[in-house]
């Protein structure tokens, strides 16, 4: 049974309540000040309360894939789009299918809908394709490379896009000085970007030594596309290539539509504002082979890059293509990362790479993150065309929010009445703590709107109202402990300190369970549920913060006041009413026998 001596070691130290309180208040003022500073005074509302933008996407059946628009692919696409638009998972965007080939995306008001549209609609398919031929994008400025011999085209590509960004500019020099200088001539034109291995230790063969060279160059796969046999299809490709005008947006759009993953194709890519055109080989690695991708800053160059990890199969494929390409002459040692028919980056390969790679280019933070998003959330199984974009009003409307808020206010009033009736003076502390918690929740939610796109929907409003009860629980646990201590015959000050360690443990254990629920849901789910889980986790954390850094210190301070420590009938701590064992008012170490030795 409960060890009698147990209570003894649990005497909490009063600490420095004043200092903790001041720190807490400073934090609170900083939050509220930040809210005013950011000019955001209300949390961003979700689409159900504020309305937003609806984008309708229509799946396009590309030639040769007539059956691609089916339920499975549509649902996959919904999942991918959902993850893309929700990014961090707190945006509350809704994605659903409509009819057999439409997807509607509802984005709450206040989201950067332009960016969302770009992420949702225009990004579709990602491939890694070997570069066969490269040329300047505008046919008028170009000496046609009709004979498709790699050398001239490589030269011509160099002239319009001289050295690219200066950051890249210093690199080629170093590289050309490197021993594996076999592909040195190509180095200067890899301004598009460059794939570097991350795991040098692994099976990457870092330096394709000169002796390796001759052998792979004979490999058919490498030589075949470079000097295409004169079959009609290839000739047509050459002709199209010559005619292609990459500065023409329409022409570019047509390319993406016609590209087939298994065949060579034409593509355009922008590099430092200059368009270049490519003939690309069949896709070797697809977007599905990318396991994860993140935008980071390259420490050396200070540029934004996108790092990719491949899946098991993707890594093998990537290794195969890079080992092949690293043996080639420029420009055929490049592979193009093609997104929707457009070359995002065409790094040259100097060595065999395997598990991961990085894409560098002229990324801004935003474009790098967008690309990272797209790569890690996978390529869509279908291509889509944006059908309509229209604003919609709230599905539930303001009256629902009003009803919820009124109900919440009434609920809060009921809670306060109950607390006052039951805890009397102590209720004051509970109410002040609740208010502190409410202010912090509100400020954080408001700040998270512009911060991470957090949007408050009706379920979240309900969650916040319910959180009143959850937060009040912690106080009740603590207050009941204090009252138990008083019943044991302690005076208020020691009671407050002794009750704390036990109450603290109970609060932490139960809040941990709540937080665990929130964390799991946040990790596993998407959309609304994820947004809700975020709210739940936030309020749980705030509950702990408020109880530890506000309620407890206040309680310690209050215990020093006459009103509470005298145990007046309105303090809620009247020992008599609590049924403390009587003669003990001032001495916790009561030695007398019970007054009323009741039978049994």
């Amino acid at each position, binding site marked *: *049974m409960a*060890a009698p001596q147990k209570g003894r070691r649990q005497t909490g130290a009063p600490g420095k309540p004043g200092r903790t309180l001041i720190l807490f208040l400073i934090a609170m003022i900083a939050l509220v000040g930040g809210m005013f500073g950011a000019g955001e005074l209300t949390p961003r509302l979700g689409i159900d309360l504020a309305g937003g933008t609806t984008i309708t996407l229509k799946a396009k059946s590309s030639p040769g894939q007539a059956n691609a628009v089916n339920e499975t692919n549509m649902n996959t696409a919904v*999942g991918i789009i959902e993850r893309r638009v929700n990014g961090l998972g707190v945006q509350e965007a809704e994605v659903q299918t409509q009819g057999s080939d439409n997807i509607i995306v509802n984005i709450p008001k206040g989201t950067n809908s332009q960016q969302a549209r770009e992420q949702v609609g225009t990004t579709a398919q990602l491939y890694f394709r070997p570069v066969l031929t490269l040329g300047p994008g505008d046919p008028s400025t170009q000496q046609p490379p009709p004979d498709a011999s790699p050398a001239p085209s490589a030269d011509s590509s160099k002239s319009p896009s001289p050295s690219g960004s200066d950051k890249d500019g210093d690199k080629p020099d170093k590289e050309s000085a490197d021993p594996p200088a076999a592909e040195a001539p190509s180095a200067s034109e890899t301004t598009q970007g460059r794939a570097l291995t991350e795991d040098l230790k692994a099976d990457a063969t870092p330096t394709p030594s000169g002796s390796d060279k001759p052998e792979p160059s004979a490999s058919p796969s490498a030589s075949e596309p470079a000097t295409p046999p004169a079959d009609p299809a290839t000739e047509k490709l050459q002709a199209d290539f010559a005619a292609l005008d990459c500065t023409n947006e329409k022409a570019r759009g047509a390319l993406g539509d016609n590209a087939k993953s298994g065949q060579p194709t034409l593509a355009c890519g922008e590099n430092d504002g200059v368009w270049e055109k490519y003939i690309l080989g069949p896709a070797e690695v697809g977007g599905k082979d990318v396991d994860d991708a993140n935008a980071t800053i390259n420490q050396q160059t200070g540029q934004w890059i996108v790092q990719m990890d491949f899946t098991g199969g993707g890594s093998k494929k990537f290794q195969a293509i890079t080992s092949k390409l690293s043996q080639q002459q420029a420009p055929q040692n490049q592979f193009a990362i093609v997104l929707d028919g457009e070359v995002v980056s065409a790094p040259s390969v100097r060595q065999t790479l395997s598990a991961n790679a990085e894409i560098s280019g002229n990324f801004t933070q935003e474009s790098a993150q967008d690309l990272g998003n797209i790569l890690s959330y996978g390529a869509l199984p279908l291509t889509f065309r944006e059908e309509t974009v229209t604003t919609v009003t709230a599905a539930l409307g303001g009256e629902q929010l009003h009803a*919820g808020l009124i109900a919440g206010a*009434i609920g809060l009033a009921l809670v306060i009445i109950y607390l006052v009736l039951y805890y009397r003076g102590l209720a004051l502390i509970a109410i002040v703590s609740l208010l502190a918690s409410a202010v912090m929740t509100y400020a954080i939610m408001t700040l998270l709107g512009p911060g991470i796109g957090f949007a408050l929907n*009706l379920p979240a409003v*309900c969650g916040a109202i319910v959180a009143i009860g959850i937060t009040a629980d912690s106080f009740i646990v603590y207050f009941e402990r204090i009252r138990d201590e008083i019943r044991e015959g302690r005076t208020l000050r020691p009671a407050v300190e002794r009750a704390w360690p036990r109450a603290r443990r109970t609060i932490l254990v139960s809040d941990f369970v709540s937080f665990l629920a929130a964390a799991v849901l946040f990790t596993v789910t998407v959309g609304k549920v994820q947004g809700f889980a975020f709210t739940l986790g936030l309020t749980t954390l705030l509950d702990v913060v408020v109880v530890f850094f506000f309620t407890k210190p206040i309680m310690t301070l209050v215990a020093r006041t006459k009103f509470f420590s005298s145990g007046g009938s309105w303090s809620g701590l009247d020992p008599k009413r609590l049924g403390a064992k009587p003669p003990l008012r001032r001495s916790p170490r009561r030695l007398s026998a019970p007054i009323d030795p009741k039978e049994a």
Partner: protein
Amino acid sequence: MSRLGDLGARLYRGEVGYDFVGKRKFWYALSILITIAAIAGLAVRGLNMGIEFKGGAVFNTPKTSISVAAAQDHAEEASGHDAIVQKLGNGGLRIQVTELNTAQADKVQAQLAQDLDIPQEKINADLVGPSWGKQIANKAWTGLGIFMILVVIYLAIAFEWRMAVAALIALIHDLTITVGVYALVGFEVTPGTVIGLLTILGYSLYDTVVVFDSLKEGSKDITKQTRFTYSEVANRSINSTLVRSINTTVVALLPVAGLLFIGGGVLGAGMLNDISLSLFVGLAAGAYSSIFIATPLVADLKEREPSIRALKKRVLAKRKAAAAKGEAPDYSDEGPGEPRGSEPDDGEPAERDIPPAAAVAGPRSHGGRGRGRPSGKRR
């Protein structure tokens, strides 16, 4: 407050108390009955899934002067299902109706055209797939599963596996009842409902964990004494945390009740109903199960343990011996500090003479010692 506070004090000391553990069979039976009713309701009536789960039809009208509310009435009348109406940027309306197939959608479209006085060919009808809701629900299930596994592991470490198992059973019990009520009442299940249900996860366990925490403390050195059996200590834990449980539950239920009855009932807000109903039922069930199901289950499981069984034997033997001596069984070895019956400000005899059934040996006997007995502390 005086009455309640006093009751709290007496509960705390164990002078009054309800024999939750002793009567557990009754409460188990009650729970099983409710659960069966819930499952039956689920099986017979099924759940009324919302458009997000079932799919439905979306009608887009051209620019119109018809109000959103009027359109909603017409749509619900025409289809017999719930409708959500939104105004579009171009002045038109988007009307979403739950659960319609193509043929029904055509009918509703015709009816809507007539009601709203818009040429039928100008109303664009499309079926909406259930993928969104399905995806959310599937992931919510996955999350639920993972959460349950993790929480069992956590509780098994923080407390012990028996408590983890009992908490899990209580949690499943709460969820079943809540879902059952949904099936029986026929409220529409929306993602909001799922969310309400998921809130219960943390909350139902919160109450349970508070009781377990007290039980863990109370039963720490249980085998070193011979006065109480584990069940009695468990019962005492429930009783001593009863005020806390009641207060936390009341305080949690009040805002939800506000949402449910005032927000939903009086102001007629549909979605608030969905969420607050699941919360209300779930929270109430959670409080009930933490008291009547979870802790008695722990006691049941514990009593199977050899050391605990041996303890029970010893305790009973000792009581028998004491009874033979004609003494009051429980207090024979009591230290001087036993705070028996100190109810200073109210000594209603009626209260004090709780019939033995209600104030069973367990809860009543260890008065004041369930947690750190005073005698020990002030030694």
